[in-house]
């Protein structure tokens, strides 16, 4: 469960917006300052660890660039909430240890709201408006990866470790 202040965006926040072309040649640490610049120049400088990144449809569409979730993670994003995600971005978030929550009602969430995301129960409570929204349950095999903190620790425990034993 996490509680935090909402940064709210709309549909189709694509990977070129999250990780603009000019930023990709930089290290993730340096590139993070460019994140979202073309739609919200304030975001990268003002996002605080513990805030929650909320968007509507098709979050992370476009490129497979993992620099997109990595730049957000560098700025302190741990939990994302969107109506739906582009599939590569969704997997990338999980693989690097972030939690992408699917909630069909993010259109009711506004910038600055304080929300509490209970991803185990699949519920979001909006403290500012008093509303509760249901989220999609995260599939069990993905929960397995999340519980290890991402794909690499998961593979080390579940695949590579086992290979070495046999």
């Amino acid at each position, binding site marked *: 469960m996490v509680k935090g202040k909402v940064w709210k965006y709309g549909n189709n926040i694509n990977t070129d917006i999250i990780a*603009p072309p000019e930023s990709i*040649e930089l290290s993730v640490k340096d590139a993070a300052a460019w994140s979202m610049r*073309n739609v919200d120049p304030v975001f990268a400088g003002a996002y605080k660890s513990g805030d929650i990144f909320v968007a509507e449809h*098709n979050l992370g*569409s476009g*490129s497979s660039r993992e620099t997109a979730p990595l730049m957000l993670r560098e700025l302190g994003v741990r939990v994302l909430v969107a109506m739906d995600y*582009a599939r*590569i971005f969704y997997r*990338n978030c999980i693989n690097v240890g972030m939690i992408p929550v699917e909630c069909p009602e993010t259109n009711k969430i506004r910038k600055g709201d304080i929300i509490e995301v209970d991803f185990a129960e699949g519920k979001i409570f909006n403290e500012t408006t008093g509303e509760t929204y249901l989220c999609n349950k995260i599939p069990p095999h993905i929960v397995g990866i999340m519980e290890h903190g991402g794909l690499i620790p998961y593979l080390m425990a579940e*695949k590579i470790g086992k290979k070495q034993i046999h």
Partner: protein
Amino acid sequence: MGMTVSEKILAHASGRECVQAGEIIWAKVDCAMMDDLLGPRVEIADNLETMGVPVWDPEKVVIISDHYTPPANIKQANIVKYTRDWAAANGIRNYYEFAGPCHQVMMDKGHVLPGTLVVGTDSHSTTYGALCSFGTGIGSTEMSGVLATGEIWLKVPASINIRWDGKLRDGVMAKDISLKTIKAIGHSGATYKTMEYRGETIRGLNMDERMCLTNMAVETGAKAGLIEYDEVTAAYLKENFNITGDFSRFNADADAVYSGTFTFDAETLAPQIACPHEVDNVFDIDDIDRVRVDQVYLGSCTGGRYYDLKMAADLLRGKTVAPGIRVLVSPASRDIYNRCMREGILETLAEAGCTILCSTCGACLGVHSGNIGDNEVCVATTNRNFLGRMGSKSSGVYLASPLTAAASAITGYITDPRDFLKGA
């Protein structure tokens, strides 16, 4: 119950007789492709060190430095150098640079075969579906897992049946089919799914045109875009690689189940334009206002193949590009560059006033060789027109076919190529 192409390839990759949409499988990867932009330098090298394992099979790995070649600055040069050195240090013999955008190089060099599972660190890895290969894009951490284990978990996707019948009219190309399909499906309409293209029109397309369709499948959110094995596939494999096997076992069964079917009529298709800043913001060319153009870009893994440049050259032959605009041509691979050079296609384009660039991803994603400035407009044969994609956030990218790009180069505004074919 019958299987779709996706189900057949993924059943094969997971060592099973049969799989069904919705199942989670662990699949063996036949080929893993990395580029310079998102390859070893982004997490992958570090992750492999953390895991303490070598690359599972260096012969199944291909690395292609294409986004930052030629490098525009020291940072890009060092990324290419890092990629090259990492490939050598890890025994990857299939390393290419300055050979062109990765997907075309993968096809040119025979790294893609029907029925295989190919993953790449670039989202347009869906291109390989033109050869009936399940090609899909993955992130860098995902790739680290593939390199360590040779496997990847996948949810077997449901498939959308895309049917095109009828013959394309003169002046209309595969890119127009691609854009029209994306408009109908929407830019997230195929998320978690696969698009399977079939029908009389698709069977009539050559391999260059087919790749234009499957390349852009990801623009609907699709996991893969697939075209069944047929005579065109067989002839391509024979001619280029002397491969003669029959791969029709990967074609869909007659009773395969689809999550939806879309049917289209090629006879009535007009040239299409995707307006800024979304790929599904598509219009018939007659339905858009006059748009003045600053730059025309003919190139990329979507629209810089031999057939694309040949068609553009046929339209531009003996004409000159409009004053005050620049027209950049980047053939989709060195092999295509050389063929176009031998056949006089580059000469025709250059004499019309086009600038011939080397084979690179550069301008398509706004990292070098043709970025656009504030408020400028580019007509491009590429695959994305996102905000700021090719340069300034106030610029606009219009996606079009090579013929529409060529016609627009002549007039200086977005132009229907059929205007130049009438009475010709």
